[in-house]
């Protein structure tokens, strides 16, 4: 955290000054470890083994916050007897279909709800990265469930959890992760001692944690621990995701993503949602509790915002205009389609895939086979000059004279040359004031897309074709101002906030959304950002004039609430768990919820309220159900649906690992998304042979001095000089073994590419003893590319494309490679070296590792 979010880290130092203990778990000793109280070196890709060990430690010693767990989580809920755990399936849950490599989730449901899992065919959900839709709303689960409050029933979630993690003993953690038992116990003890009524512990992770084939399950394990210890929804507790871009949270709330519409409404699927009703019901899950009950009003208001007057109840608010998904349209599928020539045009809007995305070579080859490419950025980035200076030009794979891609580079305005809101990592919208005009031809995206839309509509003005109606009926008349006719960002924010169609009055909360077309809301979760016609995101009341929650600085979605599920900071009858951790509580006289933050509960619903049987939607939420977005109002220790690779996190080895999975026969995540495209490949892992061709584990992450793909730091002189060259960190033992010298050169080879880097020999990387073997790990920064003041090879070139099933994010934080001294070959010789490694490793590009590896040790049995 001190590396990539130093200013956020001030609060960790503040806590440390008051005696908090800071534990840092990382494959490499970083600047965070330097000031942490304890550093645990871990083998990259084994976080579930460690956290599973902590769960076992909690359950074994009955250290969970029992009152919280029984009331607020689904620990007591009884699961169907058809369910079978990975302990019995050697790494598989019940319901695995080897043909499609996915699960049928019926057997995971709560007892009595086997039929209504709703997501029977998770293969389709995997392709549509449906996991992302659950970012803000619970998955499909029945409302009424059987519970055993004593937590003794063998099929209650508590016991299933206990059995699932029974083998994650401290010895197993040491064997799998390479962490000494002593250090592991110190961590587990501190975490449990620091939870309960009076104390809370916080789990902080950076987005690198998600870039694993089991990334979502990493976070699930963290959530389970925090639920067991009663840390969720309470001040100083919870799970904090430190995201890497200024408005990455904003870009999933108002998603420039293929599978989502603003407000986490899923993009319609061609087979599932032919009509509006089917689409809305697939969101609302009739009969289910929770706030998603009024999904119809959110959907209707969005369509109304898009198509205005043309959207009427009669034509389902122009639902017909929406494009439909048919499968996986993710960025990596798109890149493979580009290589195959299926894609004509590509827009790059402040993103640099030639360096930032995995498998840099595929990215650049894809872009070389486009008709046209539009790049909008502050600087001349690698993705714009791949045809001129890219590594593939050096190896002869891209010959500028034969590369047909027409490239437009349009300069973009910087953050001080345009006004608008960023949504930072705590869901807080902050308005930026415009300081100066953009220089020369530089323009904001607002300008570019508004005027592009205007031109398209002019060109199609008199087109009779039905497909053009969607563009022509669009509400696209934003007022413009200034010398460059810049569209008004405030007008767009008003539309996002939502307004009453007849009066134009800005709405002040998503409860005002209507399904009859009387309201138009661009993004329902942001409703309230323009409450009372005031730009709440622009509020800048100084911290000196408000309390520590600082509610009048900017605006957090939803409803300016700062800690989600904060109903859980009070006990079932509404009193704070302790004076020290008082946050939100029930005020009996005023009979309403009150506290330091906006209560995450219906204001006047008393803790004693119990829903009538069969009640659904918001009425279905009881007075003691803090997790108002979940189908059963409870925190999920066990996820009957919504997570495609298992209701409980299970340790699988990374896709490329030198070690056989010590816990199960199944080596890697069986439901991972694999691409059998000729450009893609996977290094062999046990039980496959030739694993020794790539003996070392490598991981990549950030430097404090650089930013993502480097375009905003390698071009800025005071930052470039702080970390001027690409380097690789190796332990002294590996340096001795391979013959590397400090500041000498080394080149790293994987199944996809070879890159070179200067060597930094350091004690901050330690060889780990795993399963009786010494495993060496090396670390690389991924910021470098061939443009800018300081250049170097891109570490992400080494990765192949393997994605997590839930949200289709690539595994680019752990892989295997070979490390050799000296610089890499140049020109065509580079391709020969990679090809030689592929031959020796038995890699035939286009093939991928067997999904199922449990038949018996030796024989592979590859599912397609």
């Amino acid at each position, binding site marked *: 955290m001190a590396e990539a979010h130093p200013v956020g880290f001030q609060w960790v130092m503040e806590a440390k000054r008051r005696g908090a203990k800071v534990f840092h778990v990382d494959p490499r000793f970083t600047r965070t470890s*330097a000031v942490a109280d304890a550093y645990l070196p871990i083998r990259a890709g084994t976080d579930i083994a460690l956290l599973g060990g902590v769960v076992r430690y909690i359950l074994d010693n009955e250290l969970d916050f029992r009152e919280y767990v029984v009331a607020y989580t689904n620990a007591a809920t009884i699961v169907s007897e058809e369910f079978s755990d990975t302990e019995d399936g050697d790494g598989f849950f019940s319901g695995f279909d080897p043909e499609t490599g996915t699960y049928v989730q019926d057997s995971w449901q709560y007892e009595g709800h086997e039929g209504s899992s709703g997501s029977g065919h998770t293969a389709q959900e995997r392709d549509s990265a449906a996991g992302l839709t659950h970012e803000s709303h619970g998955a499909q689960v029945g409302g009424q469930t059987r519970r055993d409050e004593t937590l003794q029933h063998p099929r209650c979630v508590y016991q299933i959890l206990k059995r699932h993690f029974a083998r994650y003993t401290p010895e197993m953690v040491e064997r799998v992760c390479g962490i000494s038992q*002593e250090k592991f116990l110190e961590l587990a003890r501190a975490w449990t001692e620091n939870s309960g009524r009076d104390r809370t512990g916080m789990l902080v992770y950076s987005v690198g944690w998600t870039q694993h084939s089991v990334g979502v399950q990493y976070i699930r394990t963290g959530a389970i621990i925090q639920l067991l210890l009663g840390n969720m929804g309470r001040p100083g507790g919870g799970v904090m995701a430190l995201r890497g871009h200024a408005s990455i949270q904003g870009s999933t709330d108002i998603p420039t993503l293929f599978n989502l519409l603003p407000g986490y409404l899923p993009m319609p699927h061609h087979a599932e949602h032919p009509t509006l009703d089917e689409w809305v019901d697939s969101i609302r899950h009739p009969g289910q509790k929770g706030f998603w009950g009024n999904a119809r009003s959110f959907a209707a208001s969005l369509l109304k915002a898009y198509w205005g007057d043309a959207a009427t109840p009669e034509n389902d608010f122009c639902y017909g205009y929406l494009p439909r998904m048919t499968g996986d349209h993710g960025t990596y599928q798109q890149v493979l389609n580009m290589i195959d020539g299926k894609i004509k045009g590509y827009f790059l809007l402040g993103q640099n895939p030639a360096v930032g995305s995995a498998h840099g070579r595929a990215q650049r080859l894809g872009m070389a086979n486009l008709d046209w490419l539009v790049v909008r950025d502050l600087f001349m980035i690698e993705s714009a000059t791949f045809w001129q200076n890219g590594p593939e030009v050096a190896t002869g794979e891209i010959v500028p004279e034969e590369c047909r891609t027409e490239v437009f580079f349009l300069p973009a305005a910087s953050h001080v040359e345009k006004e608008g809101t960023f949504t930072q990592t705590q869901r807080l919208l902050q308005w930026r004031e415009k300081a100066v005009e953009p220089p020369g031809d530089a323009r904001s995206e607002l300008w570019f897309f508004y005027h592009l839309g205007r031109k398209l509509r002019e060109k199609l003005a008199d087109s009779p074709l039905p497909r053009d109606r969607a563009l022509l009926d669009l509400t696209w008349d934003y007022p413009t101002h200034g010398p460059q006719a810049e569209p008004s960002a405030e007008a767009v924010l008003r539309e996002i906030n939502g307004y009453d169609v007849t009066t134009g009055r800005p709405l002040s909360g998503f409860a005002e959304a209507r399904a009859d077309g009387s309201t138009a809301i661009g993004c329902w979760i942001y409703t309230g950002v323009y409450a009372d016609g005031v730009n709440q995101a622009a509020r800048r009341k100084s911290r000196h004039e408000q309390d520590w929650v600082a509610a009048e600085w900017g605006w957090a979605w939803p409803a300016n609430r700062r800690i989600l599920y904060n109903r859980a900071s009070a006990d079932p009858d509404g009193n704070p768990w302790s004076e020290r951790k008082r946050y939100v509580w029930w005020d009996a006289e005023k009979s309403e919820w009150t506290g330091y933050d906006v209560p995450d509960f219906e204001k006047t619903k008393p803790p004693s309220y119990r829903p009538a049987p069969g009640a659904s939607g918001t009425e279905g939420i009881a007075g003691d159900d803090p997790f108002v977005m979940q189908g059963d109002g409870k925190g999920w220790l066990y996820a009957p649906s919504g997570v495609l690779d298992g209701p409980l996190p299970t340790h699988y080895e990374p896709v490329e690992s030198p070690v056989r999975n010590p816990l199960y026969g199944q080596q890697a995540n069986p439901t991972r998304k694999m691409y059998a495209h000729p450009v893609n490949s996977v290094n062999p892992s046990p039980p496959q042979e030739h694993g020794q061709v790539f003996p070392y584990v490598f991981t990549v992450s950030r430097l404090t001095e650089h930013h993502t793909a480097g375009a905003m730091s390698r071009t800025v*002189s*005071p930052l470039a*000089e702080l*970390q001027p060259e690409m380097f690789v960190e190796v332990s002294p033992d590996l340096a001795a073994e391979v013959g590397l010298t400090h500041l000498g050169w080394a080149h790293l080879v994987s199944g996809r590419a070879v890159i070179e880097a200067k060597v*930094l020999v350091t004690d901050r990387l330690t*060889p*780990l003893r795993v399963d009786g073997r010494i495993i060496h790990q090396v670390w690389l920064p991924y910021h470098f590319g061939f443009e800018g003041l300081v250049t170097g090879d891109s570490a992400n070139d080494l990765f192949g494309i393997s994605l997590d099933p839930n949200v289709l994010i690539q595994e680019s934080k752990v892989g295997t490679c070979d490390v050799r001294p000296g610089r890499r070959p140049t020109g065509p010789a580079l391709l020969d070296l990679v090809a030689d490694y592929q031959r020796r490793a038995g890699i035939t590009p286009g093939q991928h590792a067997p999904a199922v590896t449990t038949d018996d040790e030796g024989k592979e049995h590859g599912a397609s």
Partner: protein
Amino acid sequence: MLPDPNSLYGPLDPAPEAGYENAPPRMGFFTDTSVCIGCKACEVACKEWNGVPESGLDLLGMSYDNTGALTANSWRHVAFIEQPRPAGHRASPADVLGAPVDVGPDRPVDAGPQFLGMPGAQPPGRGSGAEGRTDFRWLMMSDVCKHCTHAACLDVCPTGSLFRTEFGTVVVQEDICNGCGYCISACPYGVIDQRKDDGRAWKCTLCYDRLGAGMMPACAQACPTESIQYGPLDELRERAAARVGTLHDRGVPEARLYGHDPNDGVGGDGAFFLLLDEPEVYGLPPDPVVTTRDLPKMWKRAGLAALAMAAATVAAFVGGSS
């Protein structure tokens, strides 16, 4: 006006002695390296505010320090030292390879600082082999001009370019400096430096222009963990003493203050530090003394030599008839 007896050496409040009536309290820095996270925000904030030019794009291999030292083009320098030895408050040295070291009751564990910060072939921190590796420690420290009570650079400056400000800080007046270079040899910490193409001497000004406007220096404002604290010097000295006490109580016995003592060789620094190891590990002199301390004796010696010379000449001409 009879100058203060300590005006050349010894504890002193420099601003009044430099002729400022009712000068504001002396301002300075206290840098607590135990909370420094080596992010280098101070280096960048200083460069952005003062327009300090680029100082070279080369990987130095000194852990994450690619700046190298305080120079005319880097007025803040964050030092990184990797030490394979147990930090004061870490768990006892368990073999990181998982096998617990046989920690007998009084086994003399000598995990002393094999790392001597020595140059050359040995990469930093190479003292111990794999089996000897113990819990690791990574020291970081943002170095800066010390703004000494008795500033040798200021004393020796022949043009009056280096001068004492009303805040008690030491600043180079770039409209006066003619690049004679004397201050560069005089600084006992090796801080001030001559800028190659420009010829003049440059160093941290403790943001003299920002102080004038009642603002904090740029580095102190940017520092995310308040490792760099700016304020009245006496207040900082109290805060520092308390902080060292806390650290000692929390099992960090090697925490010590450096440059805080008005009785040290330079009369105490305007920018002092809390370090976690010997000063020289960070590249700081262990016992710096302002050269002006010995100046009176030097002038006496020169006077004697001059007399000897004159006497010799007279003798040469008067004596001897040939």
